[in-house]
């Protein structure tokens, strides 16, 4: 379990805005640029790691009750996405590292992956 603010420090990332929700903890993460897959596989209270920047990223994460979002590869969310993240009070981190490196560091720090295959699958 890690707080979003601890993840910010670990990655040398920058918060987009201050919110008490940065002190929430996450145990699981999902990294994807495909929101279709995020909608299918993300666990509630998990962390979204993505390089896409449109408003639907915020919609997707909040719909799934995810705890926070990290934008990797130095991507900055579009203005309307920033506004919606503030409105819905979901913490957002901006990270200069690649998705691979971000995931590697978080995995090393003990975060777990959202399971991709359910029991019914092969």
């Amino acid at each position: 379990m890690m707080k979003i603010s601890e993840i910010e420090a670990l990655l040398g990332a920058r918060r987009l805005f201050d919110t008490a929700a940065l002190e929430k903890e996450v145990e699981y993460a999902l990294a994807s640029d495909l929101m279709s897959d995020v909608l299918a596989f993300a666990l509630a209270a998990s962390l979204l790691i993505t390089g896409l920047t449109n408003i639907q990223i915020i919609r997707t994460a909040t719909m799934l009750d995810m705890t926070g979002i990290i934008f990797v590869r130095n991507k900055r969310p579009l203005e309307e996405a920033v506004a919606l993240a503030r409105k819905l009070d979901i913490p957002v981190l901006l990270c200069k590292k690649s998705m691979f490196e971000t995931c590697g560091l978080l995995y090393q720090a003990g975060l777990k992956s959202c399971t991709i295959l359910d029991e019914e699958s092969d």
Partner: protein
Amino acid sequence: MSEPLVLELQVKPLDFLAAGETATHFKETLKSLGLPPDICRKAAIVVYEAEMNIVIHGGGGVMCLQVEEDKVTIIAKDKGPGIEDLELAMKEGYSSAPDFIRELGFGAGMGLPNIKKNSDELYIDTAPGKGTKLRAVIYLDKRR
């Protein structure tokens, strides 16, 4: 809650800024009614996926939320082109979405399967040229 609560909202075609507003609104409504978080979350996923389908494929339409004592019902209606092969559309990975939708992170062919996964009952009435009506039911207590 004796009378069912009914909400109905219009969904505009190809408006990717507004897409998801219906789902956000419906989810807030369910939360404000005090429904369990897992039910709110499942319903939100169903509404959002159905809403994106209306935005992308349906040429706009109507989303309806009904809340009764034992269940939540989500209805999505559009007058779009309809689904030619429903069995195929229910398969994970099959998609007829254009490239610009994929660039937004959607259109991976997970929508309908994901709606099915998150609902207890799913009915889809569709035919080429006739539009699509989707009805998904989520029971508050599955043991009933």
